[in-house]
């Protein structure tokens, strides 16, 4: 059930040429500036835009011009559209149940499943509302529920969380994350939010101007962003570990103290700017201090990115002045400090 695609297609004068390989159970995040072609790729995968050349295979061949083209309804896909596209004349519950009904599930069972899914996005009270009676954020959550309820082989999510408020977003993100981890298919997620990308996806693919400019695991990309756009976008440290209360034992060694207690496998994320560097072990509020060695330095516009080896290895962002003051050079050993409150944790598989 691997998605093996080489999307070569276009709309108008725009052309996309994006190879994609998504393993079963894997989630790939597609990132890129406006108009980069992310939605175009998703439409091609869904079967809404035929390829010009290349191929899309998942179990069988879905699209391979000129011989094969499987229409969308015979691809096991679920799509969350950027503008939701809820059916305006159906109540919310019917919208969510639609995919099941279309696949022949009986009305009662479909409604039951739809209700459960609505519950997961906190919209149970809106089951009987019409889409035009929903707020923007509510509509987006319905669209998400509608795509998830059929458990498709390939999930395509076009900015599924963009309209959600800051309070709802972590909850829905966690629910989406749980869903993505549990389900055995492939998922492709378009997002502008680096945190969504890093937390939800196993791998990032950065698209610019219809071409892939970088791809890889979030941590790897964050450490070696190929372009300024990527650096800006994925400038997060993302570590895996096992939480036990406020202590997270990291898979790569070391322990982080975090503010919110958790249990079990988690992601711990913090921006490179959160790491401060000290010549000696600092005292004071930072709960986490550990010794690191400078492994590499990159000059950016006004800042310097430091790759620091230690337990854990992290990326830090500092001003050039710091480099001079602390005399940093590859190999220099310094103390890293990181406040517990700077670290966000998210449950993982």
């Amino acid at each position, binding site marked *: 059930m691997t998605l093996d695609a080489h999307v070569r297609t276009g709309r108008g004068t725009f052309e996309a040429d994006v190879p994609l390989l998504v393993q079963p159970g894997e989630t790939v995040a597609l990132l890129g500036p406006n108009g980069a072609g992310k939605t175009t790729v998703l439409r091609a995968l*869904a*079967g*809404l835009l035929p390829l010009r050349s290349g191929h899309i295979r998942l179990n069988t061949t879905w699209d391979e011009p000129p011989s094969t083209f499987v*229409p*969308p*309804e015979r*691809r*096991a*896909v*679920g*799509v969350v*559209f950027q503008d939701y*596209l809820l*059916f*305006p*004349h*159906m109540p919310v519950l019917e919208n969510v149940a*639609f*995919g099941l*009904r*279309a*696949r022949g599930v009986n009305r009662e069972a479909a409604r039951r499943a739809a209700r459960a899914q609505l519950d997961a996005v906190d919209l149970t009270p809106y089951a009987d509302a019409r889409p035009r009676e929903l707020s923007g954020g509510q509509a987006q959550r319905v669209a998400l529920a*509608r*795509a998830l309820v*059929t458990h498709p082989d390939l999930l*395509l999510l076009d900015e599924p969380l963009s309209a959600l408020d800051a309070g709802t977003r972590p909850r829905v993100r966690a629910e989406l994350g749980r869903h993505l981890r549990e389900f055995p298919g492939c998922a492709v997620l378009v997002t502008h939010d680096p945190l969504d990308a890093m937390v939800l996806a196993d791998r990032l693919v950065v698209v610019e101007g219809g071409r892939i400019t970088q791809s890889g695991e979030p941590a790897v990309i964050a450490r070696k962003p190929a372009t300024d756009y990527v650096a800006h976008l994925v400038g997060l440290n993302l570590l895996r570990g096992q939480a036990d209360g406020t202590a997270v034992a990291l898979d790569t060694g070391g322990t982080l103290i975090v503010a919110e207690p958790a249990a079990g496998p988690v992601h711990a994320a913090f921006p490179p700017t959160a790491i401060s560097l000290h010549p000696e072990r600092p005292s004071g509020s930072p709960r986490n201090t550990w010794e690191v060695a400078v492994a590499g330095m990159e000059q950016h516009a006004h800042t310097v990115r430091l790759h620091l080896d230690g337990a854990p290895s992290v990326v830090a962002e500092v001003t050039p002045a710091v480099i001079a003051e602390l005399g940093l050079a590859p190999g220099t050993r310094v103390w890293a400090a990181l406040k517990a409150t700077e670290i966000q944790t998210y449950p993982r598989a």
Partner: protein
Amino acid sequence: MPPVLVVPAVLGLAFLVVPLIGLLAKAPWSTLPQRLTSPEVLDALELSLVCATLATVLCVLMGVPLAWVLARGDIPGRGFIRALVTVPLVLPPVVGGAALLFALGRRGPVGQVLDDWFGVSLPFTTAGVVVAEAFVAMPFLVISVEGALRAADPRFEEAAATLGASRWYAFRRVTLPSVAPGVVAGTVLCWARALGEFGATITFAGNFPEKTTTMPLAVYLALETDPEAAIVLSVVLLAVSVAVLASLRERWIGG
């Protein structure tokens, strides 16, 4: 509301309504009740309503799919097919009736097949009335539904397809409800046209009381002999159709 729209709208309404008032003014109101209850009138009225409704059902069953194929299907010569569909509109109804006789009459190629194989003969029967009305009225349905389908956003059908809906399922559950107002409008046009149909009916189905004499035929005959009666019959036809349309449409559209 802007006068530049309201003024022509009022003019338009007046243009349609003033002649009706003229008609009502000429109606022999005093003798109306007894004329109304005459069995011929009631028979013709019933026949008209039944035939127009059956014809409309026929038109909806065939016309809505045809409209969809024209609007969404990727078929060659679509412009020509669409123009063909418009033809029965342009055909003077009497000629339309003659054309139906040529094709479906006892001597027509299709009529002979129907007769030989199924023992069905359409001319001069109530079924023939339905066929004649459907022939004349169907283009109205097809063209207005196609217009509505073209104005509808096809992206909802795309969304339905990604949810696993076959084109037929998407058509039923997504497309059709979203163009409901257009379909209702087309159905109303179709029904009204069928109800008022005269020329094709009298030519193809003849004018047999209780079998094929619909209200318009009765009106025509009455015009020959008793113009006041013709006006009464017309007024009855109008009143019934206004009542049916006014009560049904708000309900359909409200749904």
